[in-house]
């Protein structure tokens, strides 16, 4: 963007705004945004409910158990990560909280889940912005696991 075009935008944004007009615009945008979101979220919510019922998540967590040792988490935490990846953070918390992990384990799990969670939903949402959502999803999964390994190593070094 050229400097001139840029200053025009800044100037426009700096105009004193009528608060009522701002409020109205925000309201109208909010309603239309919610409709856009609902169109994406509702179908995914139904799919996720089905996955939960079939027990597919349990099969996956068994498969990833050996890898969990690399991250420094117990095998059962895999289920928590899977719940976080496929459903959302609250599902993950519901699985992880009863395990009574140490501060280190919970921080590692939180780091992994913070970077990468609610993937079906958030990838669908990311797609709406027009960027390559699949690439970003891969980046998230990769870096979440990598951060888990790194934090595990760092934590061991400093304790």
């Amino acid at each position, binding site marked *: *963007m050229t400097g001139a*075009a*840029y200053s025009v*935008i*800044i100037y426009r*944004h*700096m*105009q004193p*705004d009528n608060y009522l007009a*701002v*409020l109205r*615009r*925000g*309201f109208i*945008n*909010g*309603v239309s*945004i*919610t409709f*856009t*979101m*609902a169109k994406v*979220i*509702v179908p995914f*919510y139904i799919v996720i409910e089905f996955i939960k019922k079939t027990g597919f998540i349990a099969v996956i967590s068994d498969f990833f158990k050996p890898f969990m040792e690399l991250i420094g988490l117990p095998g059962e935490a895999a289920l928590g990560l899977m719940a976080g990846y496929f459903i*959302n*953070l*609250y599902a993950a*918390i519901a699985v*992880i*909280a009863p395990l009574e*992990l140490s*501060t280190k384990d*919970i*921080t590692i*799990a*939180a*780091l992994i*889940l*913070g*970077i990468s*969670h*609610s993937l079906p*939903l*958030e990838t669908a*949402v*990311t797609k*709406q*912005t*027009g*960027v*390559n959502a699949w*690439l*970003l999803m891969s*980046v*998230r999964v990769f*870096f979440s696991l990598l*951060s888990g390994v790194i*934090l595990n190593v760092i934590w061991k070094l400093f304790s």
Partner: protein
Amino acid sequence: MILSAKLLFIILPLSIFYEFLKGRDSKLAKRRFAFIGISGSGLISLVTGIIIGLTYGAGVIIHSLRTSNVGKKEAFLILLFLSICHAIIEDTLIFVVIGANGFILIAFRFALAIILTYAIYRSKILKTPEGGDG
């Protein structure tokens, strides 16, 4: 239906807040994020994402990216940053409640997001005119 209503309640204040925010540009914040390739127009999406997150902030992010003249490359950089570092308040708090170290969480994610975005911004990957993030 209940979910949609819940979303509406969360999105409405955000969207109104966004309109207010748009009226005030912070030059300082702009300069702060310029080095990783994110300029003024993309800043609202970035800050919204960092604070509120992708699920609830998505509406604001999508709207802001579509209506402002943020390039494809910059949009990718913003979402790359947000991929690593988003919803830092909500995410961190719910894990601190069950015993995590919140400071480490926030510091690690911010550092990783900045390093990664800077690396991609400086690399040759996105140097084509229309972004080339295919």
